[in-house]
């Protein structure tokens, strides 16, 4: 198990389009203490995904920087785990084949690879499914595999972008508990992006609220409620109310400022990728 | 007055009815590309011999091989054609088309050619070598087999492949093949180009062997006998002209083959132009083709009956 590290986001800025005046991120700063879970909450379209991609090293900021431990983030790497809403499992590989993918790339010999991968599958409560193919398992199970896959390479930081948003409420709750259980063991520093207030207060050690564009940190709340937490308990309810009010205010501000359309989700990240991924999907 | 008008008009009508039809008879002609054996057809066109016989001859097809020309006969695309005796007999025997041979176009005029620097001197030395023919069941295929047989070789002793005559010289030059057999002027062309040397001319394989014939599509032979006779007369005239006027013949040959004068003149010397068609050689072709396995029909007389109209298309059509 790797040693927990601190993640610092310092004054990160990002323009809407290359050379555009309009900014999505207008100087975001926050710190996730080592081994903690930081939830990032914000209205849709405020640039949460862009922010996370910058932290992951998939995009470069126009201003500011991200530091993990003592190193500035300069590009994607296995130590910065990244899980998206759509599980990106390789459909032609089995569950086991997917989980050991990163280990394969690192050149780990087969025996050890298998053992580590099976361990992580057990961790996410998928023991026995190692021989299945992605098309044979449910959405929730796929996300568990994605989680196991990221954790198998022992990342220092784990980023999750609304990973459970496409799942039904029961599955979502179950997966939140699996995540918490796993993180208890690994103590990885986590940044968890969501638009779901319930999820944010249930999971996070702290919640960072984003404003509308140009996005900045609008509110920072610590959740000093010991785990296991009662989802419908009074402490979480109070927090929930506070956050919902803040979000509503931001939405109103945005509408008044005529930024209605800024609340639309940004174009698919793939089309605006820079760096390694030249060329878009269209011909 | 009325009676003289009636008399005059009747006379005019009678005169009109009695005057001979001035319109010429149309015939669609086919021949092989750059085949000097078919010189009589070209001369007939150039010197107007067909026109003189009241025929309007239109060149409806220039073919790469006799089998192609037989297909044209089968689809009634041509009325009369110059082509090899072998492919035409094969086609008739295999019931591919209804065709009647009426005259000869030429005799001899092919040769087996080897590389200019080759040590081969005799046919029997071709054993184990690769020899190209223009096509199966062609006159050249036939001649090659006869030459091999005469030299005591089995058919399988030589590797036979098909190459189109224009490509034969290149293939010989680059040693893809060791020898080829083709109709003039391809054989002479190899010599004048310095690429090849004649191993044996066809006149030595089978002396006086008939080569190409003048054939008519079955229904034309049956329905238009007058036209057939007219054409044969013109053909005989053209044949005689070639024998008497070498220079002009050479000029026409150059015009239609596109080859140089020296080659055409030399090649002409190897060809015998003759128009009398005889039965015996046809029977010979038929039985040999059956032996080679190209035709199913094994009764040469049956083939002969289909091939040459006994009613006597084959007249002595001297001009």
């Amino acid at each position, binding site marked *: 198990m790797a040693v927990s590290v601190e993640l610092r986001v310092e004054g990160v800025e990002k323009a809407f389009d290359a050379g555009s005046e309009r900014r999505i991120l207008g100087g975001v700063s926050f710190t996730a203490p080592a081994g903690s879970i930081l939830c990032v909450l914000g209205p849709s379209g405020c640039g949460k995904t862009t922010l996370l991609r910058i932290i992951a090293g998939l995009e470069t900021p126009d201003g500011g920087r991200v530091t993990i431990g003592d190193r500035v983030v300069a590009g*994607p*790497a*296995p130590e*910065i785990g*990244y899980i*998206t809403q*759509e599980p*990106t499992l*390789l*459909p*032609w*590989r089995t569950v086991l084949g997917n989980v050991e*993918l*990163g280990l*394969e*790339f*690192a050149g780990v010999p087969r025996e050890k690879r298998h053992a580590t991968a099976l361990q992580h599958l057990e961790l996410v409560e998928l023991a026995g499914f190692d021989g299945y*193919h992605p*098309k044979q398992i449910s959405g929730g199970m796929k996300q568990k595999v994605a989680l196991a896959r*990221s954790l198998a*390479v022992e990342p220092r930081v784990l980023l999750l972008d609304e990973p459970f948003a496409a799942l039904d409420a029961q599955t979502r709750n179950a997966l939140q508990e699996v995540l918490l259980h796993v993180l208890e063991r690994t103590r990885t520093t986590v940044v968890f992006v969501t638009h779901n207030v319930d999820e944010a207060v249930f999971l996070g050690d702290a919640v960072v609220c984003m404003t509308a564009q140009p996005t900045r940190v609008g509110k920072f709340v610590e959740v000093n409620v010991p785990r296991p937490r009662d989802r419908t308990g009074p402490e979480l309810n109070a927090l929930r109310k506070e956050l919902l009010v803040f979000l509503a205010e931001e939405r109103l501000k945005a509408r008044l400022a005529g930024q209605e359309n800024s609340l639309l989700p940004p174009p698919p990240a*793939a089309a605006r*990728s820079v760096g*390694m*991924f*030249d*060329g878009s*999907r269209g*011909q | 007055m009325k009676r003289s008008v009636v008399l005059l008009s009747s006379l005019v009508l009678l005169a009109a009815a009695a005057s001979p039809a001035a319109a010429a008879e149309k015939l669609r002609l086919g021949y092989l590309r750059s085949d000097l054996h078919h010189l009589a057809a070209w001369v007939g066109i150039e010197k107007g011999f067909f026109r003189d016989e009241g025929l309007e001859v239109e060149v409806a097809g220039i073919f790469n*091989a006799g*089998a192609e020309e*037989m297909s044209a006969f*089968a*689809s009634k695309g041509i009325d009369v054609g110059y082509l090899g005796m072998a*492919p035409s007999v*094969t*086609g008739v025997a*295999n*019931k591919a*088309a209804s065709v009647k041979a009426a005259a000869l176009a030429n005799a001899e005029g092919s040769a087996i050619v080897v590389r200019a620097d080759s040590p081969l001197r005799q046919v029997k030395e071709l054993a184990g070598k*690769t020899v*190209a023919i223009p*096509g*199966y*069941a062609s006159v050249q295929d036939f001649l090659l087999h006869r030459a091999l047989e005469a030299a005591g070789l089995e*058919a399988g002793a030589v*590797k*036979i*492949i*098909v*190459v*189109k005559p224009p*490509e034969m010289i*290149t*293939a010989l030059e*680059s040693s*893809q093949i060791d020898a080829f057999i083709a109709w003039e002027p391809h054989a002479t062309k190899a010599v004048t180009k310095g690429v090849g040397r004649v191993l044996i001319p066809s006149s030595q394989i089978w002396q006086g062997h008939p080569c190409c014939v003048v054939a008519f599509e079955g229904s034309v032979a049956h329905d238009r006998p007058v036209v057939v006779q007219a054409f044969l007369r013109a053909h005989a005239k053209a044949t005689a002209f070639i024998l008497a006027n070498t220079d002009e013949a050479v000029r026409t040959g150059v015009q239609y083959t596109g080859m140089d004068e020296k080659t055409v003149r030399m090649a002409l010397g190897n060809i015998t132009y003759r128009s009398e068609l005889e039965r015996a050689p046809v029977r010979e072709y038929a039985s040999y083709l059956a032996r*080679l396995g*190209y*035709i199913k029909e094994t009764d040469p007389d049956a083939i002969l009956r289909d091939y040459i109209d006994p009613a006597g298309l084959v007249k002595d059509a001297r001009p």
Partner: protein
Amino acid sequence: MSGRRWHFLLQLGPLVAVALLWEALGAAGIVPENRLPPPTHVLGGLGELISRGLPPGSSLLGHCAASLRRVFGGVGAALAVAIPLGLLLGRSSRLRTLVHPFVELTRPIPPLAWVPLAILWFGIGDLSAVFIIFLGAFFPILLNTVTGVLSIDRGLIESAVILGASKRDLFLKVLAPGATPAIMTGVRIAVGVGWMTLVAAEFTGVKSGYGLGYMIMTARDIQRADQIVAGMLVIGLIGFGMDSLIRIGERRLLQWR
């Protein structure tokens, strides 16, 4: 199981019906036998192709083997060149732009138009036939590979990069398997085109004297229409067989879909 057997019979039915109609038309003299030989003649011709061979002495099996050899050679060469090239082109739009004019200029030229050049360069042996087939097979495989790579979810590629994939890892473990469904389609098309091109390529003469196109050309020379059609039947059957095999292989390879 009876469901599948019934389905098979249902497909066979129309073929049999057409054959019977064809036979009847021929027997009634409506379709002249020398233009389109009826099925009985064709089967007879096929029998002779098998027993005696055409040209006499050259076995049908020998012809099939020679033609198949050339197709596998040409398609194999196309696979070896087009797949790696396609994977590279799929990844880099810069390369695609560079290569685009060459591809779009050469692609429309029918492989058969290359025959004279091929014979000049490679002679009349197997190599020129293989070259012609290579040209026919190359473009379907190349274009399908590029499409295959472009159709891979970008998220998959990003995940692989995040997990530490090297360029080589990416090509071998993500792009190639991801593009395989499209590549298989390309292979099916390529084999079909290659097989069709082959026969025509063999018309121009073939040094070994073996090949199905060469056999048909011989049948044409000796004006045996029944053997021409019998030869065509053999070509069609083999082509169908190859396509079926590829489809089975495709299904097995792509079970994960």
